[in-house]
């Protein structure tokens, strides 16, 4: 049997290698492929696409502005030559269209019906041609009042399966112009939103006169520069200068349904193309190509430009991108007048398969693909996400959880935990209830016995003896009082010498410890990653907390002393420590509690934390007021001045650090120089 296994293994091993990569076209690219890692950095990965040899090298394209790929055809708006070039990918046949009527075609689209729509920028017309290149009709500027009197400068266009035409223009920020199948203007569609005011804009808005404001450029939403229509008649738009709105997926109502929380757009996208499965591939004018999944999550970044050499796959100025049915891409290099193909590798194809299988509900097959990807791209976020989601769908929650946590897919992670918690509760609920009942019965019994026989007396005696032996413990007791009677406690600290610096120091340490434990051990769903993110350094984080804390104490004393505050440094130090009591006492419970909560119960976590911090803040305020004998407003002023002191002190420390660093560097250089010449 062993021999049989071995004989079977050889072809199987070979197949694992070959089958994985069987139809890939892969030797080497001219630019590296990047993806987003699970720790949200850009890392290199296997080549997703490889450059092919350029197309239409000898066609003499001049400043071509648009490219549209349909089936085996490429349509190119050869702007400088006033024509449309139709190119057959298999045979290389070309057909020149519209030379007689076109002036400066900047957009071209072949509709599902085969008609060719052309946006002629210079003629201010949309020209329509039959599939064989015959001119059918022209569509001009909308003549309705709704359009207004703006010049009509059509640039790009696309049509849906109903025959509706969508046109971007140079002059409109209200959105895409929509025409009905009869060529009648139907209104604007999918306008962008203007961004919030910058600081300068806010100042202008607040202080400028109306006349001054009128001289400023109007603050319009960014203009849509390109668009594409999917087979499902969703309209994809491209917007520049705004990463969040760089790509939008608009439904028929013009509402953006692309809601990737971590969408990484680029400010200089010029075009978008769609791959099967509604994967989006966008390109910047610099030739950087980014592929996203249907939800807008980053898959691959590749391509680029080479300004001083001519290499396949590297561009100069890109104006458009298209995708064929096989998933290959075609970039239009406007400056060189070339079409650069990018051929899909097996690596990308398998990723697309994984995404597609997931969409189709074939979760086991999708998981199989992603499992293999974990070997070759173990850090790619899309791999962990794909695998985690497939496992989640397969109800393999235990395994899914770690992958979902790595890519911080919080909603799915929360659901996963909910399922796990549910299963655990179902399994252990009876035991828990029994344990609780037994514990309360035991407690009741102990209390009863204690009342009768004083069975717990040794414990309370022991505690008293301990307090007597270790005064520090006694000095910690005002904590309880501080939480209920902060004014009295602060009074006692100032006037009766209550508390001790040692106990206060211990409390500061405890506060620091519970904070650190909270950062380190609170559940992923509620953890901000300050300690756990790759590259994070807890020591730095703790230092970053301690230094301002210490500065606050010292600063508060000095600020109050020049503002007639009565408190001494000792008082400030001790009082603030006791004021931290709610935080110290509540935070460990919250940390533990996060491990029992899902996002459905996130409000509990939020409330408890707000309560803890709010309570602590209130105690700090009251304690400072009492310690310094300030009024309410004096205390506010005192705190604000203290915060200002902290900021200035930190700045001063940074400057000193830099100067010290320079000094050390200078001395080292000097020593090196001397030793070199010695």
């Amino acid at each position, binding site marked *: 049997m062993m021999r049989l296994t071995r004989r079977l293994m*050889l072809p199987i091993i070979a197949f694992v290698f070959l089958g994985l990569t069987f139809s890939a076209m892969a030797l080497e690219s001219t630019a590296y492929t990047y993806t987003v890692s699970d720790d949200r950095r850009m890392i290199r990965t296997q080549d997703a696409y490889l450059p092919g040899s350029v197309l239409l090298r000898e066609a003499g394209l001049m400043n071509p502005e648009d490219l549209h790929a349909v089936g085996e055809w490429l349509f190119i708006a050869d702007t400088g030559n006033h024509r449309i070039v139709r190119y057959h990918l298999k045979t290389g046949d070309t057909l020149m269209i519209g030379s007689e009527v076109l002036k400066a075609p900047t957009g071209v689209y072949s509709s599902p019906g085969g008609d060719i729509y052309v946006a002629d920028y210079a003629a201010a017309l949309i020209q329509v041609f039959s599939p064989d290149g015959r001119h059918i009709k022209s569509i001009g500027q909308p003549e309705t009042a709704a359009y207004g009197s703006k010049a009509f400068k059509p640039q790009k266009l696309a049509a849906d399966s109903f025959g509706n035409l969508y046109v971007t223009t140079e002059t409109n920020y209200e959105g895409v112009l929509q025409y009905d199948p009869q060529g009648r203007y139907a209104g604007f569609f999918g306008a962008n939103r203007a961004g919030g005011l910058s600081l300068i804009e806010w100042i202008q808005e607040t202080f400028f006169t109306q006349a001054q404001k009128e001289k400023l450029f109007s603050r319009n939403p960014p203009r849509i520069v390109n668009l594409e229509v999917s087979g499902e008649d969703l309209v994809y738009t491209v917007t520049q200068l705004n990463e969040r709105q760089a790509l939008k997926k608009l439904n028929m109502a013009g509402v953006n349904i692309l809601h990737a929380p971590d969408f990484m757009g680029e400010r200089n996208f010029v075009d978008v193309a769609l791959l099967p499965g509604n994967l989006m591939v966008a390109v910047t004018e610099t030739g950087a190509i980014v592929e996203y999944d249907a939800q807008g999550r980053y898959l691959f970044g590749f391509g680029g430009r080479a300004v001083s050499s001519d290499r396949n796959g590297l561009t100069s100025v890109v104006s458009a991108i298209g995708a064929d049915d096989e998933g290959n891409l075609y970039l239009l290099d406007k400056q060189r007048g070339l079409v650069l193909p990018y051929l899909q590798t097996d690596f990308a194809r398998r990723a697309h398969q994984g995404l597609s299988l997931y969409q189709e509900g074939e979760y086991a097959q999708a998981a199989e693909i992603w499992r293999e990807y974990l070997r070759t791209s173990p850090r790619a976020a899309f791999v962990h996400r794909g695998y985690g989601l497939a496992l989640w769908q397969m109800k393999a929650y235990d395994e899914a959880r770690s992958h979902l946590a790595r890519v911080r897919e919080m909603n799915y992670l929360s659901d996963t935990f909910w399922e796990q918690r549910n299963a655990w509760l179902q399994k252990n609920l009876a035991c828990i209830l029994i344990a609780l009942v037994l514990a309360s019965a035991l407690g009741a019994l102990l209390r009863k016995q204690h009342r009768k026989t004083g069975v717990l007396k040794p414990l309370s005696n022991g505690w008293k003896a301990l307090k007597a032996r270790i005064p520090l413990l006694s000095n910690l007791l005002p904590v309880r009082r501080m939480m209920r009677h902060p004014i009295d406690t602060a009074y006692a600290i100032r006037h009766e010498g209550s508390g001790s610096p040692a106990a206060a120091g211990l409390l500061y340490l405890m506060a620091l410890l519970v904070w650190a434990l909270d950062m380190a051990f609170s559940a992923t769903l509620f953890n901000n990653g300050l300690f756990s993110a790759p590259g994070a350094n807890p020591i730095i984080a703790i230092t970053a907390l301690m230094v301002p804390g210490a500065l606050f104490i010292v600063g508060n004393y000095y600020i109050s002393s020049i503002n007639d505050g009565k408190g001494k440094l000792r008082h400030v130090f001790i009082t603030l420590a006791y004021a931290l009591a709610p935080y110290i006492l509540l935070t460990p419970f919250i940390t533990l509690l996060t491990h029992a909560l899902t996002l459905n119960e996130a409000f509990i976590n939020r409330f408890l934390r707000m309560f803890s911090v709010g309570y602590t803040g209130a105690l700090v305020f009251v304690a400072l007021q009492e310690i310094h004998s300030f009024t309410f407003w004096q205390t506010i002023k005192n705190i604000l001045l203290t915060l200002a002191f902290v900021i200035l002190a930190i700045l001063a420390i940074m400057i000193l650090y830099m100067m010290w660093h320079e000094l050390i560097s200078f001395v080292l250089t000097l020593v090196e120089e001397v030793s070199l010449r010695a």
Partner: protein
Amino acid sequence: MRKRLISLGCAAMIILSLCASARAGWAQQMETRSNRYTQPDAPYEQVVSALDTEGFELVATSGMAQLWLNREMHTIRLIDTRSGYVWGAIPLQDARNLNTSWKSYAAAIVALECFDSKFNEKRYGLTGNAAVTYSLQPDGFSFEAHFEALGIRLAGYYILRDNVLTCGLAPDSFREEGQYLVKSLAFSPYLGCVFGDETPGWFLLPDGPGALMRFRAGGTYISGYDQRVYGKDLAIETLETAQSLGVNRPADYLVAEKQANVPVYGIVHGVGQHGLLVEIEDGETYASIAATPAGLGNTRYNSIMARFEYRQKYSKATTRSGAGSLVPQDDYNRMTPKLSYHLLTGPAADYDQMAVYYRGLLLDEGRLLPGKEQAGLKLEFLGTDIQKRTLLKTWLAFTHLSDIPPMVEALEKAGIGPLQVVLRQFSHHNKAGEGLSKALGREQELRALQTSLTDQGHLLLVYLDPVRANRDQIRLRVNAANTIAKSPIVIHRLNPDLVYPETYFFRPGTVADNVAGHQARFAGFPAAVDQLGSRFYADHTTGHIVNRAQAQQAFLSLLSGLSNDGGPALYNPALPAWSLATAYYDMPLTNSQYLFEDDTVPFLPIVLKGSLSMYAPPLNIGVSSRERLLRLVEYGVCPSFMITQSQSDALTNTPLEDWYSTNFSDWEQRIAGAWQTVGPALSKLSQSHITAHEVLETGRVRVAYDNGLTILINYTSSPWVCRQTTVGELDFAVIREGQ
């Protein structure tokens, strides 16, 4: 039952494979037609030279060729008497698309580029610029040229023997006496040029394994092929850096262009008809090979030349921030340029036969030694490196010495071997010349590992890069080599996430110290040496100036010393280091993919096969594909993998994180699969020379060996019947010719 199971398994795999390949359409056609592959040649009609000897005098005759000279235009004609083909630069009368000054430059037997007093560049041919005197010799002629206006004198010769025309400058004949500074010198810069696509053919470029630039009518280009032989001199040139794309990803996205590791290029007019193999025999350390496609700038000619760089411009800093102006070197590079044109005719006028011819030259002259080749699989183990945290850096171990034997054993069980095992990142703090890192094991363990691997027929090598350093490994003022602008030589990667974005280079003296340290600490271990055989750079440190030629000589001498330990294997070495190497690592599998290149051809593999073991770059990076394996078989190159025992994740935030998948357990099956595919074929071809390489159809290649075996490689998605053998889709077959 067993047979049935095996058959069933195989059948299932074949069906699955067919399903996988059903997708292949025009994309695969585009792939095999890309310049990553060799393209089939269209049947050419007999090519007739557009040149003649009218106005020329016959100055030399050999049994195979004649040399003619025109003293007015100072240009030559070279006739291959076996075919009657006339080689030359441009026609005397109707050189189209060239003005007088360009005609003078293009035709001249020797031509100059000079800087004037304002450092502007201008070209000068002999006609109208120089007083030239000729002296006829029995087998050629010598000349003296005086560029009076430029204040430049030189003397040279053209000698014809058999099928070889040799030209060069007479030693110490070069003089600069005026304000003009010579930038470069070329012999017959347009010899073999073609106007547009009027003559079918190509230039063979030493780009990667080899590349063909086919003659086209024109195109839109912004640059041609212009590469320094043996790579750029980093003391005066920087490597190509990518421009920011204005996007979220880092700007270190460019795959580096391939270095020209051989000082040769080829010209073919009509494949299988007329060819010239041009070798730079002397001065190659300062030479460039420059090929210009028709359409670049205003030129309509395809031309190629060897250009000897006497001076280059560099940025001389004039402010503290480093801003400066471009000025040429003060002193010119000392050299004695020498070039030879080898006339090839008939079937020899093709890239594969050029390689065979060149191999013969190298073997005859001892620059390449026969019989060092052994097929195998290379595993490079990554030992240890630094991991970056917010302020701290910590050392992590990825593969301990004790981890290696079980991995080797596992591969042996899968029938893989012999292995070349390379230990990388194994020295203390990864510094060249330091001893074994204690975190990875003890020296006794290393000796024991070597013994056990040797006993099993494998070879253990220790990686050495004595040339490069990161910021923590070098004292810039003490050890770093400096540029001509007196700043440390550095290569920046535009990626702020990197642990070490800068790479520095040691001074030649420190390089020698590093090598000595390595030899002392790893005596008896063959070395796998990076950079030393391929990166030749000058050092302009004040008081310790070493020019490029001296550095090259010093590095080769160090390599020679390393051969005592049975090595070294060299990473992508340049020609001068070949005779010192036992293996060629990181053999490029494609050219740089310039737009004007149409084919990748296996010029280097044909030259080296049978002499040096060749290993591909690690297959676990880039794309591991069936095509890549087929390419290994086509070129006779062995596979290699980069491996760690630890999970690949462990390399995060280390200088090694570009090796994104290295874990052995993740790759074990793939390594086995790769070897099952290529190993048996490569083993049969070991110690044999390639005699012919031809593309019969697009994506279908035949490679013949001198041991009688022929490899048929099918890159297409349909089966191929060739010589009564059916080669499956994306598959290959080894046949014995005549069977």
